[in-house]
């Protein structure tokens, strides 16, 4: 609609402006509270960035474990999407498949499972992740624990045999019924437990740990690929540096001290950094926004706690791997951390302005 200019030459009063077409009415205009502009990012965008960042680690896993890994991935994603849809249906809410969060949960769950997992194990995991990990709390944003980790730990406790049957990576042609073996951390734990030394465990070299040519959950093996994805997330501004940095630093520190004190029984911190689920956990699971603190100081504490618990469980606990437990425990501490680390309100400074002037 165009408005006819209703103004004449300077100083001459004119008729009030009259719209040529229909006048602008409230119906035509949006009236909402400020701000009226937006930075542009939304939840699906964030989830898509996470998926993109997971791609290198995913591809590495598929490369090393072949079709078995692909089967687990497809089952987990399909299972999570179906469960998400069903849960929304059950409580008569609009389906939330389009926010990609169920896809992220599915991919993360798959990456946390052995590539030889039976189909029912993956499906039970999907149902636990979405149903018990997320939907019962009210869906996205309300779950206190990382859904994929809830499922992983549930499966680990309920089906310990299936969850610790690790396929030996043999490249893309790895058969579905391929040979199985131990994870590097598992082998070390077993050797030390039997009174032998770390060296006796015959753990793979650092190069294999870095690229991922080792046994383990199919998405956690390639430290390098996961690190690449994590750094990309950091660069895109999706995650904040505090969690992964504090996580890796504290795990390295504690395992490093133990290693220095007794190298025969404690593996090098590099093995702990590159082996097991640490990279996947530190960059993709602990950084889950919903279940970690909101302040940067809080994230630092959260990351450090994850690192400490991981090291303690790995070195002195019953399980060879502690990343999942560590993150879940720190998830439980998140509300407390948020309480402790509330930022200081502007002006609530100890420093008075007169001191600021003097400085």
């Amino acid at each position, binding site marked *: 609609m165009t408005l006819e200019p209703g103004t004449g030459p300077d100083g001459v009063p004119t008729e009030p402006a009259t719209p040529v077409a229909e006048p602008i009415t409230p119906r035509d205009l949006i009236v*909402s509270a400020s701000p009226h502009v937006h930075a542009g990012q939304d*939840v699906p965008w964030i989830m898509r960035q996470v998926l993109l960042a997971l791609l290198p680690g995913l591809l590495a896993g598929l490369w090393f474990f072949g079709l078995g890994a692909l089967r687990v991935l497809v089952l987990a994603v399909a299972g999570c999407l179906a469960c998400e849809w069903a849960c929304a249906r059950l409580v008569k809410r609009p389906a939330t498949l389009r926010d990609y969060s169920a896809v992220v949960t599915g991919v993360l769950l798959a990456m946390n499972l052995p590539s030889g997992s039976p189909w029912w194990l993956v499906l039970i995991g999907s149902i636990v992740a979405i149903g018990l990990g997320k939907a019962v709390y009210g869906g996205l944003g309300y779950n206190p624990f990382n859904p994929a980790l809830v499922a992983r730990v549930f499966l680990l406790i309920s089906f310990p045999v299936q969850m610790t049957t690790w396929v030996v990576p043999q490249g893309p042609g790895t058969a579905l019924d391929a040979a199985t073996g131990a994870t590097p951390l598992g082998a070390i734990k077993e050797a030390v437990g039997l009174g032998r030394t770390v060296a006796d465990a015959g753990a793979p070299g650092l190069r294999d740990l870095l690229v991922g040519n080792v046994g383990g959950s199919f998405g956690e093996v390639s430290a390098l690929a996961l690190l690449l994805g994590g750094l990309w997330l950091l660069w895109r501004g999706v995650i904040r540096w505090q969690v992964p940095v504090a996580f890796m630093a504290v795990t390295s520190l504690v395992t490093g001290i133990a290693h220095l004190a007794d190298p025969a029984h404690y593996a090098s911190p590099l093995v702990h950094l590159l082996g097991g689920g640490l990279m996947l956990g530190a960059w993709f699971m602990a950084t889950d926004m919903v279940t970690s603190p909101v302040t*940067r100081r809080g994230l630092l504490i959260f990351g450090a706690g994850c690192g400490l618990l991981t090291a303690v469980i790995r070195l002195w606990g019953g399980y060879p791997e502690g990343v999942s437990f560590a993150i879940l425990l720190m998830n439980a501490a998140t509300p407390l951390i948020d309480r402790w680390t509330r930022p200081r*309100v502007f002006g609530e400074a100890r420093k008075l302005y007169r001191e600021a002037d003097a400085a």
Partner: protein
Amino acid sequence: MKFSGGVHPAYHKDTAGLQIEAMPLLHRYVVPIAQHLGAPGKVLVAKGDRVARWQPLSEPVGFVSVPVHAPTSGTVKQVAALPHPLGRPMLAVEIESDGEDRPWEGLAPLGDWRTLDPAALRRAIQAAGVVGLGGATFPTHVKLSPPAEKKVDLLVLNGAECEPYLTADHRVMLEQAAEVMEGVGLMMRVLGVSRACVGIESNKPDALAALRRACPADVAAEFVLLETKYPQGSEKHLIYALCGRRVPPGGLPMDVGCVVQNVGTAVACLEAVRDGLPMTERVATVTGAAINVPHNLRVRVGAPLLDVLAHCGGVTPDVGKVIFGGPMMGIGQFDMDVPLIKGTSGVLCLRDDEAVLYEGGPCIRCGACVDACPMGLVPSAMGLIAERFRFEELGDWHVLDCIECGSCAYVCPSRRPLVQHFKRGKAEWRDILEERRARTERDAKRAETAATA
């Protein structure tokens, strides 16, 4: 010094190069009596009265109150509740222009401010109806009257203009630099301070140069180019950026010895004293993708929005939102008959596709709002509390310190209406405080009567 938090919205200062143009005289004006924070004045005219340009239409009621004046000469058509930019109809005087634009004989120019005492200057500023033109429209004479126990030593001139799109202050600084700096000197005299600090965002170096050039020798002003970051023009953040002083929560700039004034207000004060001219016009930016010919307009207060849009070539067919003010803090309008008032720094017309109405999703606790909040609040948690109507908890989260700048909602990936929650939350929390105060008072009185009985 840089404050933490804040955001970097797209600036869209497309009208920065457009000279201020005076809006032609209109057929009718609607002058609301309440255009300032504080008590609305008492109406002095009635239907059928003939008024002259600059004639007072109301008189102040008490100290925190200012009059409004006729923007042109003509006849009072009605005094009634009419559409107001704040949303609900408010008492206003409608004037039908007689086309003569005849000035009022009662104007009383005082001449050179350098020879006048502060009390006389203050009186002239109040009588002229001068309010802060930055948008909050607090009566200027009140800000210029700090209580004796507050030792004010610094006048801060706010030339940040951090809202995207708006360029009115920028143009005033370029085109009326000498008057701005004279106004600064005048306000310094009223306050009895010897130091002034002019803060301008780094995207307007030409404005800073112009003011520096125009600064009279007897006005001791410093000029500081500030980081271009929203909300740099917020009083508290501007003061912190300029001199490192932090206004305490719930406090005012005068608590740290500062008084902040907008550049347009400085000019208005000068005109009020030098020429005896009341505040009946202001500079407003009319801009946005949905306006045909963007302008920096000198508008008489009371000009109906429809006429202003028409003067700017009308709106495009895909107009989706018309905002008074900037995109971060402005108010969406639904009635095109509302008048532009003293606080209208701009009219922003957004297209349909720019003015999407978001359905807020659940908070995913990403912490973007915590990083963005310049006040050090936790908008994510406060939003969840307000959403569940647990307003009595909001006080603990310092909701009253929220400056409603919109940085949190601007970055929220779930598009949650955080500012809306906090506006409501502030009002509800104030009500709760008031209720508590009344109850304690009642209890005290009851205890007193019980004791005497």
